[in-house]
């Protein structure tokens, strides 16, 4: 067992689960989506991205790409949330909440791909 693999798997999976936790629930209902969960998802996703830096294999490259996509989506979601709470006159209404949650939904898809890649990598790994 290598500690590096444990940490790597932990963060990739945690990024996906946090993302899922934020995403689940009625799209337009702000009460069902916790902002702390979104914050945690962004931070864990960033850490997962940095962990994927510098791997020169093909699967490593795809890993990094999915993480970058998830980051992009989540940062867009936080920006939308910030706009709604700080700038917009209407505040965090159903419409803007739907935008935030659907953006995080896109990130969830990328995170799922990331997890699938992790599983594929694990399954195809053979110790000789």
């Amino acid at each position: 067992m290598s500690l590096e693999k444990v940490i790597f798997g932990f963060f990739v999976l945690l990024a996906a689960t946090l993302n899922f936790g934020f995403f689940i629930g009625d799209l337009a209902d702000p009460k069902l989506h916790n902002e702390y969960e979104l914050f945690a998802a962004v931070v864990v996703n960033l850490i997962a991205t940095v962990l994927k830096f510098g791997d020169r294999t093909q699967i490593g490259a795809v890993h990094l790409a999915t993480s970058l996509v998830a980051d992009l989506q989540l940062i867009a979601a936080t920006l939308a949330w910030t706009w709604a709470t700080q700038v917009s006159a209407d505040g965090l209404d159903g419409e803007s909440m739907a935008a935030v949650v659907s953006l995080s939904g896109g990130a969830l898809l990328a995170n799922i791909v990331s997890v699938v890649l992790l599983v594929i990598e694990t399954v195809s790994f053979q110790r000789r």
Partner: protein
Amino acid sequence: MPGSRRWWRPGRDEQRPREARRWTRIAVAVQGPPTVFLILRRMRAPLIVLISIFAVSVLGLTLIPGRDDAGQPTRMGFFDAFYFMSYTATTIGYGEIPHAFTGAQRLWVTAAIYLTVIGWAYAIGSLLTLLQDRAFRQALALQRFTRTVARLREPFLLIAGYGQTGRLLGRELDALGRRLVVIDTDAERVDALDIDAYRSDVPGLAGDARNPQTMEHAGLGHPYCEGVLALTDDDEVNLAVTMTAALVRPDLPVIARTVSPAVEHRMAAFGSPTVVNPFDRYGDHLRLALRAPASYQLMAWLESGPGAALPERAQPPRAGRWVLCGYGRFGRELTEDLHAEGLTVTAIDIQAVACAEPWVIPGDGSEPQVMAAADLAHAVGFVAGTDNDTTNLSLVAAARHINPGLFVASRQNRPETAPLFAAMRIDSLLVPAEVVAHEIYAQLSTPLLWRFLREMPALGDEWARTMVERLQRHCGRRLPGLWRTTLDASETPALARRLREGRATLGDLLRRPVDREQRLDIVPLLILRDGQVTLGPADDHVLQAGDQLLLAGQPPEQRALTDTLTIDSVSRYVLYGQRVPSSWIWRRLTRSNP
């Protein structure tokens, strides 16, 4: 649409030979590690630390209860917290927003400030360490070198070994406008490339030329690579370079230097490299100097490259006995050559065994009794041929002391000792690096010069003497530029009619465009026609289309001749003595039809 796939037109400077349009790759993973990966890999830990510290600080700020201006309990939002941490961590510090902090918040912020400072210091420190890192810098240098080489879009020569020979040759070839790429194991020599005054940019890599990958990085597979020169002072490296070049690019000419006939033989097993053995060549030169001093003088002059001063005409004694100190590879080669010229030789060598050839005296040449046994007083020539310059110098001094009239030859191994040898006034000096550089220069500069040098000795000493005098009269004591001209439609468009008439003589061509009664100070060295050469052609030599000329002259004279060959109105005046207007309108008006 037919032809639509080739919408681009190759540029005018497109010189790539048709058969070599693609790179020849030798290994799959030849690229070095992209430096961006290296940075990312090393920066993983600091970046994660930074992200974590930020996350913890921001989260803490949002959780700790605060108080608004009205004194009501409130909490900081994520956005405010992130904004606050961003300007605090980067030491900008706008103050406490949106409301003044409570004691609990200030406590947390104090801790967060110290944490983020540590995080930033760690991240920036890691980045700076990485930039200083030797492996990283090497990776950067390799990447830059590979990119520079890959972007070359004109023919270049790949030089392995940038020692004395490489530097000499590099300078001469650069003066001819050739592009070079250099590999050497010594990083200092490669760094010296930046200091050396080259007209064009010479990419250099510190690496082992024995490694095919290094050769690949240096552009061995590059479509514009036009030749490989193996010039290191290590025979094995030269052999490895020759092998690599012959196996990867059999079409490329390879020139290798070696001092060992055995290695020469092994090199010849791979394709047909041109092998230059300085000892062998020096022996040949000495034989030529013995037989025809003027021929040797002319050869040495032309080989030295543009701007070289006319060398002294050495007069080695043609009869008598020579004494040789040092009977290694060089001594053996030279003894053979001297024997072939019918001279007797006495050789002294410290390592020679008594039962060797009868003319060898075992012993240390610096000991008086050994010198006495060689009987220098009755010898005519003396060669100090050991591989130690100090020994050579002292041997020469000792020999001169015994017999001041000796013809003295010596081998100079290190460039630093050149002033000492110059002060000793050695009659014939062998500098292996120079011999190799001059030989390769003669082969690479123009094929016609090489042809000239090979055919010239057959014409005899008297002919060479006249040629040296002619060159000196027309061009001065410094070697003028040598250049090649082909009489065809592209290089000499203004000459086409005269060539068709079959009346163009060399003398007509060399009239001065300012005053056709005068002759340009240009010496024609050679004319090549259908594989047949004429050396030193006279002025009444009739020229034909397709002739190739090798000419010598100062740059202004060369420009004047180029005018004659390319500008119609100039050639009309020079060849026919007619003054025609040079513009199209005036020609129409004066109706002087060509």
